[in-house]
């Protein structure tokens, strides 16, 4: 990744932040601070909290350790789910990609899980695996496994015939061909799916924590902010999750760039 790209990304982020700050200053005196919530009024809402309100709220959340603990707990779940799910997904994908008879066997299940929303599985997972860590980690792992499975499977399937022919002509057996030809050729596809999976893992965990809300977690932080309701708290929570997604995506991107450094890159 080039510095130009990084600089443009930074300009994009900061530019939007500046626009928000401007809008919040203008809106401070003009936006209503009393909102009808269906059954009652909520007084003193800050629809677009100013930077002062955000700093104040952020300081409280950091000093009380709520934010740090929440980040630690949610990140741990995401990392565990990513590791577990991608190991299972990639192994299964490689297997079904290499053995065409297994493909038909796995195909309907892939479609099934691919389009089953994470939330639909949550109640079942809670019953099966309890309210603790397992159900949440396994929920992420399920989603991650489906995405990385597809990446690995299609990666293996997409290996160009000429490479397999060349390997066979050079006398390579199946195992050598798998290790030195199929696997590296499928790697870009696998890593691209892993990158999608990292983003999806965060979507899954935050939604799971919103529904099955427990302290401390980023999902709970948002659920709590919604219950009060406290807009600055929501904003901090959203920004934190967004920042974590960006960090994870950057890590996946760097891994991707390293593993595909042999590829021809478009400028």
């Amino acid at each position, binding site marked *: 990744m080039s510095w130009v790209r990084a600089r443009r990304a930074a300009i994009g982020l900061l530019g939007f932040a500046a626009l928000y700050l401007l809008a919040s200053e203008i809106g401070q005196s003009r936006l209503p601070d009393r909102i009808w919530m269906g059954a009652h009024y909520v007084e003193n809402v800050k629809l677009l909290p100013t930077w002062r309100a955000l700093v104040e709220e952020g300081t409280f959340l950091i000093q009380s350790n709520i934010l740090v603990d929440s980040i630690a707990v949610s990140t741990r779940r995401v990392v565990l789910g990513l590791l577990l799910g991608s190991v299972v997904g990639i192994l299964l994908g490689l297997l079904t990609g290499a053995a065409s008879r297994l493909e038909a066997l796995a195909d309907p299940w892939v479609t099934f899980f691919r389009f089953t929303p994470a939330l639909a599985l949550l109640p079942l997972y809670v019953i099966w695996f309890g309210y603790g860590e397992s159900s949440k980690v396994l929920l992420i792992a399920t989603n991650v496994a489906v995405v990385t499975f597809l990446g690995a499977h299609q990666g293996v399937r997409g290996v160009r015939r000429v490479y397999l*022919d060349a390997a*066979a*002509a*050079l006398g390579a057996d199946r195992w*050598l061909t798998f290790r030195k030809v199929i696997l590296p050729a499928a790697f870009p596809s696998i890593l691209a799916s892993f990158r999608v999976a990292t983003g999806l893992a965060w979507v899954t965990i935050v939604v799971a924590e919103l529904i099955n809300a427990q302290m401390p977690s980023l999902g709970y932080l948002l659920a709590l902010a919604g219950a009060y309701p406290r807009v600055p708290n929501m904003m901090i929570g959203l920004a934190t999750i967004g920042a974590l997604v960006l960090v994870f995506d950057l890590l996946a991107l760097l891994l991707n760039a390293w593993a595909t450094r042999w590829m021809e890159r478009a400028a």
Partner: protein
Amino acid sequence: MTAGATPPVLEATDVGYGYPGPTPTQALEGLSLEIQDSEFVALLGPVGCGKTTLLRIFAGFLRPSKGSVRCAGASIDGPGWQRGYVLQEESIFPWMTVRQNVEFGLLAKGLGPDEQRKISDELIELIGLTAFAEAFPKELSTGMSKMVEVVRVLATDPSILLLDEPFGALDAQTRQRMQDALARLWAQRRKTVLFVTHDAEEALYLADRVVVLSPRPGRVKASFTVGLPRPRSFESRFSAEFLGLKRRVWEATGLDGM
């Protein structure tokens, strides 16, 4: 040619091959060809005449639907390094360095790292890519990549080389340099070569014998022995003998416009 005690290195007898599918195509029909030990044979013919099909049959990737193919008397029933095959398409492994590409066949053979290194050093030097030994193929030109593919096959020391239009995508100058490099390699190592091309001049410059195939379904239409002395040079291309042969080959391929 008299039948010796040893069978020909490559032998196709009455070979037919048809591709099934929505447009069934009979690529080869009643093709017979014998190639002797250390012979350099160029296979020439129009697009779609089954040159590549015949080469893939010899390489062991296709089985003839009629007739038989043999290698040193034994039936061919799959790919093997003994028949070194360079595909028409670019098939250099882009995720491996030049050296790893050259050593791949040696790895398949189970050679130790030191032996692999010795052979790859020698071959990479032979094609003048020592400076690129640890580079990925994305840094190479098309011609360089093709030469790597050729020496990757040479590394395992096959007795037979099957080359499918290896220099087809190159410009004229690079092409001549590659032809000279191949001629030198062949002179040094005395392999049996079957070289597919659609360029009559290239065929005559390189081969001992030029075999012309008919349009689809391909069969042997004509065969020319090239008696030009070796090593051939730039001057050979303009000798009376060369030009006379070129005329006859062009007539056989139908390039004379008749």
